[in-house]
Every structure is written in C-alpha cells, then in structure tokens.
C-alpha cells in the first residue's frame, strides 16, 4: 500500500523553517527552540521516566473523571428523558449549573480535596457530566415514536421497553456523546494541571516554561498534541464501530 505523503509536506516545511530560524536569527531565544533540541529533550524525559509517569497521571485522572461524569450524565439524562416531570423539575438547576466553566471549580475542588488525583477527577467529572446529560436526554427523547408504539402494541413491560427498545436505540448517539466527552476530559485534565495541580503533563509543560527550557516545553506540547490526537482517533473509531454494529448501514 502506497502512503500518501502530501498531507505531511506542510508540517515538514514548517518544522524545517523553525529549525533554520532557531539556529540563525532566533539563536538563544527563550521562547522557541529548534525542533531537534525538542526531540533531544523528549528523549531525556522518556529516559528518566518522567514522560510516562506524567502521561499516566493525566490519562488516568481524565479517564476516571470521564467515567464518573459520563455515568452520572447517562443516569440523569436517561431519567430526564423518560420522565417529563423530572425534566421539568430539573430544568432550572441544569440550565444554571451547566454553563459554569469547569475550570472555575478548581479553587473549590482544591479546598475540598487538596492537591492530587481526587481534585482533578472531580473537575473533569463536572465538565463531562453536562454534555453527557444533555445528549443522553436528547437521545432518549428522539427514540423513534413508532418503535414505542410497537412496544405498546406488544405490551412490553416498562423494564423490557427500556432494555429492548430505548436502551439499544440510544446507544449510537451515546457513543457520539462519549467521543465529545473524551476530548473534553483530556483538555480539562491538562488545564487543571497547568492552573493548579502539581502533577501530570500540564504541570510538566508549565514547569518547563517556568525554568526557561523552551526545548522541553515544545517537547511536552507536541506530546500532549499527539496523545490528544491518538485518543480522539481511537474514540472516533469506536463510535463508528458501534454505529455499524447497531445496524446503521444505509441509515447513517
């Protein structure tokens, strides 16, 4: 199979230009380092284990926060989708709490949990809860009404109606929501580390910047970007796989 090199031309030119600039005009800059130095710094971080430890911390707390937030959003969203009454009662609370920027909760989370894993998880979970809740609720409300009539005609019990009709019907949309939340979880986790939590990739990035080490800073930046890209690609592949498995051929 021939690899298409054309998409790589522009980034390669950009990196080459940066390398040339950093070695000539920009020599000794505190802001930018030549990519070759960033690669060396990356090798150093990989060798002393700090790279894997920080990556593990960030991904671990993002995953746990995502898990908690997504499960909460899934449960609440299903409830609000199924019960019109619950939706009416909750609408004000949801509309007030949802627009609160998740990072604005960092001071509160720090007071409650101190530095560390739990504080970061709580902020990530808050950030993931709302999109999951809103999208789950919408998915439940958008279940094909004809299928609910089929359930009615067959006199399915409320439990069977949920497990056999509503549940499977919302799964493809839930995976769309999950993919969005994966991206949010990573962004929020890194932001929390840059702003407050002295752990993980975000903290390593800000420390490299503060110790005037642009090569290491660029190395972390590129690594965070690469990790984000890989995780989003994996989530997208999972979403497409689920959509195919749920018989969406021809329909989506």
């Amino acid at each position, binding site marked *: 199979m021939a690899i298409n090199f054309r998409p790589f031309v522009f980034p390669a030119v950009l990196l080459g230009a940066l390398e040339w600039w950093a070695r000539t005009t920009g020599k000794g800059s505190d802001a930018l380092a030549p990519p070759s130095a960033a690669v060396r710094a990356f090798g150093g971080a990989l060798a002393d284990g700090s790279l894997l430890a920080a990556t593990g911390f960030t991904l671990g707390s993002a995953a746990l926060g995502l898990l908690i937030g997504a499960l909460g959003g899934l449960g609440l969203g299903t409830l609000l989708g199924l019960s019109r009454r619950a939706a009416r009662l909750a609408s004000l609370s949801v509309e007030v709490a949802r627009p609160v920027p998740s990072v604005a909760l960092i001071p509160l989370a720090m007071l409650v949990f101190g530095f560390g894993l739990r504080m970061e998880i709580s902020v990530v979970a808050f950030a993931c809860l709302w999109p999951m809740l809103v999208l789950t609720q919408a998915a439940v409300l958008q279940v*094909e009404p*004809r*299928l609910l*009539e*089929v359930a*009615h*005609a*067959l*006199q*399915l019990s409320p439990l*069977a109606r949920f497990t*056999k*009709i509503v549940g*499977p*019907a919302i*799964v493809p949309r839930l995976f769309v929501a999950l993919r969005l939340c994966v991206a949010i979880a990573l962004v929020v986790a890194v932001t929390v580390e840059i702003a407050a939590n002295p752990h993980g990739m975000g903290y390593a990035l800000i420390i490299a910047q503060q110790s005037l080490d642009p090569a290491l800073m660029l190395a972390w930046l590129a690594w965070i970007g690469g990790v984000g890209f890989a995780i989003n690609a994996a989530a997208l592949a999972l979403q497409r796989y689920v959509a195919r*498995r*749920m*018989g*969406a*051929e*021809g*329909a989506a």
Partner: protein
Amino acid sequence: MTESVLDFDRVAIHLGGREILSPTSLSVRRGEFVCVIGPSGCGKTTLLRAAAGFVAPSAGRVSRHGQPINGPTREVAFVFQDYGRALLPWRTVEANVSLALEAAKVSPADRPARIARVLATVGLGAHAHKFPAQLSGGMQQRVQIARCLAQEPELMLMDEPFGALDAMTRESLQDELARLVREQGLTVVFVTHDLEEALYLGDRVIALRANPTSDKPSLAALIDVPLPLPRDQLSTKEHPEFLRLRRALYQYLGHT
C-alpha cells in the same frame, strides 16, 4: 351467524377539536377480511388505531367479544405502513420476529422453531440473519408481517401496509397476504386508499368520507365483495363484478 371479533358501536373520534370520525357502527366477524378505504384525512387510520386501542373514542364504544377495549392487547396485531421505522434496526430479521415472542414470554427454547415457521410462511427463511437495512422495502414489510403472525393474533390490523411499495412488489405481497389469510383463517382489517386493492383483497369494503357532516356521516358505504376465491391479479381484476363494484365505489368516494 359467525361470532363478531370487533364491534364499533356509534364510535365518534375528535382530535384537536375536529370531528375526524362521525358516529360509526360496524362489526367484523371471525375470518373476515374487511378493507377500509377513503380519501386522505377521512379518519381511516384513526378508526384502525381506535380498534387497536391506541386512541380512545370520544363517544360510543369499541369492543371485542362484547368487552370494551381499554388499550392494546397481544391478541390484536398492528402492521404499520412505515415498515422501516417499525423494525428494530439493531436486530436481525429473526431477532425482530423474536420480539413478539419475548413480549408474550414464550420460553427461549420454543422460540427458534416458531420464528423459523413464521419466516418460512412469509418467504424469508433464507434471510433470518440479515439486518433490516440489508433488505428491500417489500422484504422489510414481510418481516413486520412475520412479527405480527408470531403473536398468533386473533385480529390483524393493517394500516396501508403496501402503500409505500412499488406496484410489482405490492401485487405480489397482496397475493401472499391473500394466501396467508386463507391458509391461517386470519381476521383482517386492512386500511388502504387504493380502490382496486380493497376490492381485490376484501370480503367487504367500508368506504369513509372526509369532513363528515350531520347529513353526510363518515360511513359512506358498506359493500360486500362477492368475487370468487381464490382471486388472481388478471382474471379477478377483469371480472365484470369487480368492474361494477369499482365504478360504484369510485362514485361513492368521488362524488358523494
């Protein structure tokens, strides 16, 4: 006289403040194939939904075996026009049919044989493991009919089941349905807007008119179809009686 399976006693239905169906009385006897025709908006689908228990009449009484109905029951199967939406896209053909058996709490051990039997009846035996999206419209509608047959219903209500199909597929499904009804002694109420379809399939045809008034009630005509059985697409549709009834119905619907 044969036992009646469904009775409408002066049933009127209002939806959104408008009278959709003016007081109408009719009864469907066991083993009978009754077609309901009329222009769009004449309330034929509403009448069928009332028979299924999906909508409650605003006045009068819908009853089965003398008992007023209050909601759907598995004794009555409903075939929707939009087969594409009435099937579970994430289930295979056999799993879609299985839904009716799961609802009736048929034990898992007994399901495969019953599913295989109804799929064979509608000619889908070879497609049991396919998903609805892999089938043509006509085959999807057969899946829905198979699911309803699996209910082993006493009464089958069909809401323009072949309305969205092309002419060739529609005719072959008409013939298949006629054969099924004959073989299994089904009782069917079949809503359509196609005059020829109604006469070709029905033992009786009920013609409804839109916008009923006090001197022109919903029920425009109730016609017996004394055409010989079994019927076939060519000779039945050239039968003098068929042509006469077609003309009569056309006049009822178009100019009354």
